[in-house]
C-alpha cells in the first residue's frame, strides 16, 4: 500500500515538473510525459530505498 502511494506521489510530482518545463501542452506531450514520469517514479523509489537501507 505504501509502495503504491509512494510511486503515485513521485509520479504526480514528476508529471507536474514535466508540465511546467515543456513549452506547449498537447495530448502527445502529456502521454509521453506521464509515461516517462511513471518509469522515473519507479526508479526514484528504488533509489530512495537503496539510500535509506545503507
Amino acid at each position, binding site marked *: 500500500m505504501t509502495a503504491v502511494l509512494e510511486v503515485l506521489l513521485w509520479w504526480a510530482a514528476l508529471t507536474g*515538473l514535466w*508540465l*511546467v*518545463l515543456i*513549452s506547449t*501542452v498537447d495530448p502527445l506531450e502529456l502521454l509521453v510525459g506521464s509515461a516517462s514520469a511513471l518509469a522515473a517514479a519507479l526508479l526514484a523509489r528504488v533509489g530512495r530505498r537503496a539510500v535509506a537501507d545503507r
Partner: protein
Amino acid sequence: MSTSDGWLAAALVPLLALVPVLWRIAYGSPGDRLIGQNLTSLLAGLVLLLAAQGFHRTSYNDVALVVSVLGPTGTLIYARFLDVLPDSRLVRWTALVGVPATVLPLCVATGPGRAMAKLLLIGVLLIAGSVVTSGRGAREGVTA
C-alpha cells in the same frame, strides 16, 4: 530580431562580476577556486535568465535550468576530489540577494502562468544549490 536593452544591460552586471571571479579562480588557493567555481555557475545562471528576457526568447531559460542543476553538482564533485568544501558567505549572500532580485522582476515581466512557474523553479534550484554547496551543513556532504 527585437531586443530590450534594459534587460540586456541588467545581464551585463553579473557578467562583469565574473571578471574578478576569473581572477580568483586563476590565482587563488584551492578553496578559493572552489568558491569561484560555485560563484561562476550562480552568476552564469543569472546572466542567462536576464539575457533570455532581453532577447524575448523564453526557451533560452532552458540553458539557465541546466546551469542551475549542473553547477552545484560540479561543485560537489570538485569538493570530493580536492577534499575541501569551504564555508562561503559570499556565495550564500549572492544567492540569497541576487537570485530574488533577478527572478522577481522577471516574474513580474512574464506574468502569471507556466513560464513564471518555470522561472520560480530555476530560482529555487539556484538558491538551493548555492546554499547546499556553501553552507554550514555542507561538511556532511563531503564525507558521505
